[in-house]
């Protein structure tokens, strides 16, 4: 009987340790966002200008919803390494459409496939400008086959650019664990299936900087919001 009680206690302790929950939150923006700029160079390129008969698009550095939610903030757990499940994760897709990357801010795991499409009717070159991973530069003809990229080393905001259309950028943060998220158009984010425990949560906006918060993930999950302001 005593052995049975000890076994059950141990099993409970182990299962409690394996409990996983979600981290959710909202990224808020306080203040007035810096003005976006019209991507004027598009008008000099006949292929791309033809895609915008009603006016040129603007930069999307500060995407703020009506409720003050801030999009494109990369939220992740700090200090976790060697936990990548990228090899078995679904590929992430980024498209070249209207001579712009869509989306422009992404996050993937090491070893996870990133598929780059070309939905435009013009040629692009997909030029990666990494800090830790090997650089590459490949041409992608209109209607050409998708290009697939994987990265072995984690790094923040790895830049993808097109030199044919030098206003085209995407930034891909690479993690070697699955505990990250990018805030959506309402500023909301969810990091799923985080093992219970204490962590430092980091939120990074490419222009507005970095914020951190110490959190404890319990069975009930945890909610953590961040508020960014112009520098």
């Amino acid at each position, binding site marked *: 009987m005593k052995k049975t009680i000890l076994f059950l206690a141990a099993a409970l302790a182990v299962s409690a340790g394996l409990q996983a929950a979600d981290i959710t939150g909202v990224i808020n923006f306080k203040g007035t966002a810096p003005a976006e700029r019209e991507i004027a160079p598009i008008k000099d390129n006949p292929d791309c200008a033809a895609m915008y008969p009603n006016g040129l698009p603007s930069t999307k550095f500060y995407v703020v919803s009506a409720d003050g939610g801030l999009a494109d903030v990369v939220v992740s757990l700090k200090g976790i390494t060697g936990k990548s499940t990228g090899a078995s994760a679904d590929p992430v897709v980024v498209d070249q459409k209207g001579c712009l990357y869509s989306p422009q801010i992404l996050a993937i795991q090491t070893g996870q496939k990133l598929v780059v499409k070309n939905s435009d009717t013009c*040629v692009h070159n997909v030029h990666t400008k990494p800090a830790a991973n090997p*650089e590459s530069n490949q*041409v992608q003809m209109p209607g050409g086959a998708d290009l697939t990229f994987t990265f072995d080393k984690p790094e923040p905001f790895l830049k993808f650019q097109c*030199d*044919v259309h030098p206003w085209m*950028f995407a930034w891909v943060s690479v993690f070697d664990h699955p505990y990250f998220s990018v805030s959506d158009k309402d500023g909301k984010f969810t990091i799923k299936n985080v093992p219970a425990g204490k962590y430092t949560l980091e939120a990074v906006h490419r222009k*507005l900087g970095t914020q951190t918060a110490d959190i404890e993930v319990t069975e009930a999950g945890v909610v953590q919001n961040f508020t960014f302001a112009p*520098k």
Partner: protein
Amino acid sequence: MNENCHPKYNGRLFWFATASAIVTFLLIGLGGLVTSHEAGMSVPDWPTSYGYNMFALPIQFWHGGAFFEHTHRLLASAVGFLTTILAVWLWLKDERRWLRWLGVAAFLLVVAQGILGGLRVRLRMDNLGIFHSALAQSFLVLMCAIALFTSRWWLQQTAAAAHGVARGLRSHVLFVTVLIFVQLLIGATMRHQHAGLAISDFPLAHGKIWPDTSPEAVAHYNAERTEMNGENPITGFQVVLQMVHRLGAVIILLGVAAAAPLARKRLGGADGLTKFAWAWLGLLILQVTLGAATIWYKKAADVATAHVMIGALSLVAGSLWWLAATRRTSLTEIANEGQNTVN
């Protein structure tokens, strides 16, 4: 060489050399446009272009960055062709052995320059662009020098009519010309590190006489940068480098501003070299104005490229002035030696 023995002036050779130098100058301008438009990597393959033979790329692909990069490759091929003809022509027709070898040197340089440009694309190394730029400037000076060496002025000037130029003045011009070359290297480094507008205001620098280069300040500059043209985040080093470029411009401008009055004092206002020195000063004033305009107009590609081209012309002007002065001085020394022998 025997300076008393004048090789025959060959008008066709001179004009061909001059035309080759002019096309080389235009090639530097087109190369400047490639970098100004951040288009160097828009055609990822070399020597093919998008998998096509370079000379057969369908015109539908000559758009955006590819237009600048591809036409740069085509014009570079033309310069290589012209240089090859020039080298063969000099080898076959010019009596001066040193000039024949200078033609060979030009051929080897243009081949090396083409390979360097190709490697910059294939190896995706931004810093190779700095060497590519430096070699381009050196090659332009060499082509202009060859044109000078084949000119009627160089070949038919007589020792009796030549007036020497004091060593001090020649050394001054040579020193300033070397400074211009160093300045062009600094400019090329700034451009090829894609760190344009590391300082976005002028005459102040980030609102100060000397900008703050602390990590916090640099992070603030980067947050304010509106990337629209392939530019990298800047570093404190790049901010300092641009300040060195600005200070270098002041020193060079003062150096050239001193050269012109010095030439007038030593050679007289009517002397060709004095007039040339005033023109050089005019170029430098234009160049400094273009440098400021590059910042005021947010590194607009045409303004930045004009800055590159006038920088190249300033280097050529200093180099040719020094060569011409050295030529005149050597002829004068020969005349003096002859006079001493007679006496």
